[in-house]
């Protein structure tokens, strides 16, 4: 049995002009592995992630034929039951950390809060744990950073704080929505190693949403390519370079190279694959 089984997942938003599906019937399974989701902006990557946690805000609706996490049918879980699953068993690193962090609470307090909802710990112990967490995500002076407010930390630090908070409860499934887009490659590699360690040691499943195709293809096991709410291509990570779908090829071509010589980067020509 897979950790996560999804068949025909739809996310629908009613608008004054009728319903629109932002995720249109996608199916995939996830074992205890690293699954990458790539695709252009607005293709429904984040919505897929949020749908798994049933975090789509009203009036949005989620429906699916199969929607099981570790044998639990998520479709008929109450909001209360979902709350005990969220965080503890499935956690999600949201796309914009500065939006997701509380702007009027220090970083340290927020991590401490995440620790406390998970288990009861003495004060001193919490302080130490907060500092080790920050160190683990390669923040150089945890003492100082713990006392800063979200607007006082750098973009990359915000992302690392979010990752630290989401890894605390040691979830079975981590959904990471663009978790490292503001990190330099060196810290990025180290942070990904921490996540990787939980995948290997604890058998955590990982859904890694990103627009960095190079990174996804070197870090994940399997990749889904999404476009306007559907999965257009699914492949092993190593084979991304040989992808055949024109959409995927278009994305790959748009990436600048380290020794770039083109004067202008090719952008997606939507007319070629919009078909159907």
């Amino acid at each position, binding site marked *: 049995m897979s950790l996560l089984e999804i068949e025909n997942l739809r996310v629908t938003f009613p608008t004054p002009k009728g319903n629109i599906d932002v995720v249109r019937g996608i199916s995939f399974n996830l074992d205890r592995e690293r699954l990458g989701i790539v695709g252009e*902006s*607005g293709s429904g990557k984040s919505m897929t992630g949020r749908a798994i946690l049933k975090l789509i805000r009203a009036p949005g609706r989620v429906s699916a034929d199969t929607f099981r996490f570790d044998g639990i049918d998520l479709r008929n879980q109450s909001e209360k039951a979902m709350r005990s699953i969220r965080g503890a068993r499935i956690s999600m690193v949201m796309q*914009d950390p*500065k939006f997701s962090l509380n702007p009027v609470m220090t970083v340290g307090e927020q991590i401490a809060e995440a620790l406390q909802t998970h288990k009861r710990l003495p004060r001193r112990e919490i302080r130490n744990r907060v500092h080790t967490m920050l160190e683990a995500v390669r*923040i150089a002076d945890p003492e100082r950073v713990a006392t800063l407010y979200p607007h006082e930390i750098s973009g990359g630090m915000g992302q690392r704080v979010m990752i630290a908070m989401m890894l605390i409860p040691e979830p079975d499934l981590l959904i990471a929505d663009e978790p490292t887009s*503001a990190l330099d490659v060196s810290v990025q590699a180290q942070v990904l190693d921490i996540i990787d360690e939980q995948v290997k040691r604890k058998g955590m499943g990982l859904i890694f949403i990103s627009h960095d195709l190079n*990174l996804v293809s070197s870090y994940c096991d399997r990749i889904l390519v999404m476009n306007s709410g559907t999965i257009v291509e699914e492949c092993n990570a190593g084979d991304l370079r040989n992808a055949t779908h024109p959409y995927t090829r278009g994305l790959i071509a*748009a990436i600048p190279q*380290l020794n770039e010589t*083109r004067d202008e980067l090719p952008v997606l020509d939507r007319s070629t694959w919009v078909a159907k």
Partner: protein
Amino acid sequence: MIALSLQNLDIFYGETQITHNINVEIKEGESFALVGESGSGKSTVLKAIAGLAPEWSGSISAFGQPRSHNIDQQFAKHCQMVFQDPYGSLHPRKTVDATLSEPLAIHGVSNQNGRVEDILVAVGLDRKFRFRYPHQLSGGQRQRVAIARALMLEPKLLLLDEPTSALDVSVQAEILNLLKRLRREQNLTFLMVTHNLPVVSFLCDRLAVMRHGRIVEIADVAELKRGALKEPYSRELMDISSAHAG
């Protein structure tokens, strides 16, 4: 002519010293990249130049004029900043039109209507977006609006803080092409923070590598393309980048 010169720049937030002894000179029309470790103070340098981080010592001068520590209207005309996060840098309750007219209203510029229309064309946004709210725009469209806003006052120096890191590759390509074209057309000078070396290679002439609040190396982009950066930290960044691409 020197567009921007930073000398012995030490920036503080209260007690903490963030940068140490930053020295950079950027020529007019040049595109200069600031890369380096997350949290090393790259955004802070841009903020100090713009006037958002007023506690510093050393000197900052733009186009020969020394810069005061706070935001000032005159300087605003020469130098504007584009922020990293297109989701956070637009006022959620203002239409594109209101956002773009605001700088003109502040500086009492006339013909607001025409200027807004021109700038929308320049950044490649269709007229139909003019009266939309930010939540009705995609990330790439928002970033175009942010760039348009920065260009409204016709500045000569543009500070770009990771302008594409929140965008997908195809939109990133559009924005990079746009920036390149605008620089050519309007003879802009760029100071751009990024962690993406291929972007540097595409858009920039020179780069400085920062770590722990210090500049460890300044090099030509040609050296980056040849893989000939000297400092160990720069080489590390370069090697990881090329390993990904490999």
